[in-house]
């Protein structure tokens, strides 16, 4: 039977109280938000925190625009993005990716802070954070710091969060010109963690691709960008097809991990297919809106 080991439960009413508790417990304490990642880890005894600090009463639930930044509070639940007008209007790829997160019950309770802190290698929100160059805002009793998504994920289930710190918000730069993109994922079953996923975001500049962002999961122990493919896309006229030969070459050089779910060779082939499809879809959508 899978059951968690013993812990002490704390439910602070303010962020300052929560941070004080996390500072006191250090390595032995973990924040508890929706529990959709941490509690499975505890039930499997892969995580055995001595203290759980339940942060669900702390607010941190706003999605707000602050100039060129969309700031998402750490406790925003995944299902919100599916109907949020700001996300829908400004970041359609984000919204497309959210459909792949778990299933409706998980999306109702899981939070962005929890997903990023858990850092599953193929989870959707870490991939989107890397795609959009998000800044992860972490706070402790010593103050606040921002970590770029590219530097935040250190490996499978490993992040830049230090003991005593917790994520309070995630800041996404809002695309400043018309943008189009695509998000495609393949898993064993709908709602499972992905074997691989690809997200593409293209900003349109005149009749050309102005900037391009391509990120994938399944190619490493955390989501990565593919700058070589981004460079191949930038400047291309919108009517041109996706550069399939270039994609095949770049995908062929990837060194994805092999595990019980898929071999490295299978993942590499899958990534090539997903990169081809996502890039083609993004290019077609960019042409439609231009």
């Amino acid at each position, binding site marked *: 039977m*899978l059951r968690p*080991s*013993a812990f002490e*439960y704390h439910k602070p009413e303010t962020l300052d109280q929560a941070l004080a508790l996390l500072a006191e417990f250090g390595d032995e304490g973990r924040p508890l938000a929706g529990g959709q990642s941490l*509690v499975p880890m505890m*039930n499997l005894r892969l995580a055995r925190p001595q203290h759980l600090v339940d942060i669900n009463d702390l607010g941190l639930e706003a999605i707000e625009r602050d100039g060129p930044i969309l700031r998402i509070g750490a406790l925003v639940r995944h299902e919100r993005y599916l109907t949020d007008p700001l996300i829908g209007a400004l970041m359609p790829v984000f919204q497309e990716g959210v459909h792949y997160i778990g299933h*409706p*019950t998980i999306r109702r309770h899981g939070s962005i802070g929890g997903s990023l802190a858990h850092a599953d290698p193929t989870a959707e929100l870490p991939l989107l954070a890397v795609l959009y160059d998000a800044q992860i805002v972490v706070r402790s009793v010593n103050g606040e710091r921002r970590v770029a998504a590219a530097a935040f994920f250190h490996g499978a289930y490993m992040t830049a969060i230090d003991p005593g710190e917790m994520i309070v918000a995630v800041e996404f730069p809002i695309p400043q010109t018309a943008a189009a993109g695509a998000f495609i994922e393949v898993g064993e079953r*709908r*709602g499972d963690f992905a074997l691989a996923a690809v997200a593409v975001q293209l900003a349109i500049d005149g009749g050309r691709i102005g900037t391009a962002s391509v990120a994938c999961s399944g190619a490493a122990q955390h989501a990565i960008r593919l700058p070589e493919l981004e460079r191949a896309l930038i400047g291309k006229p919108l009517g041109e097809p996706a550069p399939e030969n270039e994609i095949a070459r770049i995908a062929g050089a990837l060194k994805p991990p092999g595990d019980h779910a898929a071999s490295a060779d299978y993942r590499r082939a899958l990534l090539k297919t997903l990169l081809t499809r996502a890039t083609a879809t993004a290019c077609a959508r960019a042409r439609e809106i231009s």
Partner: protein
Amino acid sequence: MNVTLTVNGTQRTITVESRRLLADVLRQEFNLSGVHIGCAHGACGCCTVHVDGAPKLSCLTFAGQCDGKSISTVEVLGGVEAEHPLQAAFRSEHGLQCGYCTPGFVMTLAPFVDDRVAEGRMPDDLEIREAMSGNICRCTGYHGIVAAVRKAIGDRLAKGTQA
């Protein structure tokens, strides 16, 4: 720790260890054996109950987190005769065989059915399948479950009731 739970309409204060899962407390302290535990790590959906009206996995919820909350299990949905229209549709459409996953499916899908009836809209099969994607059934192959959801919604839309 002490927690006060309102379970299927009855309020009780109990003392629990903080590590106790809501699923275990409902089964052992409240004798609600309709709360089934399949995987105990959030992958199968069997243990779905309603916490303050919304479906939640009781294997990923500590009882201690539910202080002051209202919890419903499958036992209160259609009574001992399982008379909820969705339960009736599961029977008529062969939506269950061994029945182990059924309470979870029913608790996940009952609010989905209510929402679609309130909208006056029959969802397509893809939408129904997304709604039930967190629940695993090893017997039926899911077709009967999709049919049951369609019947539960269709019957109520035909009657024009919001019941």
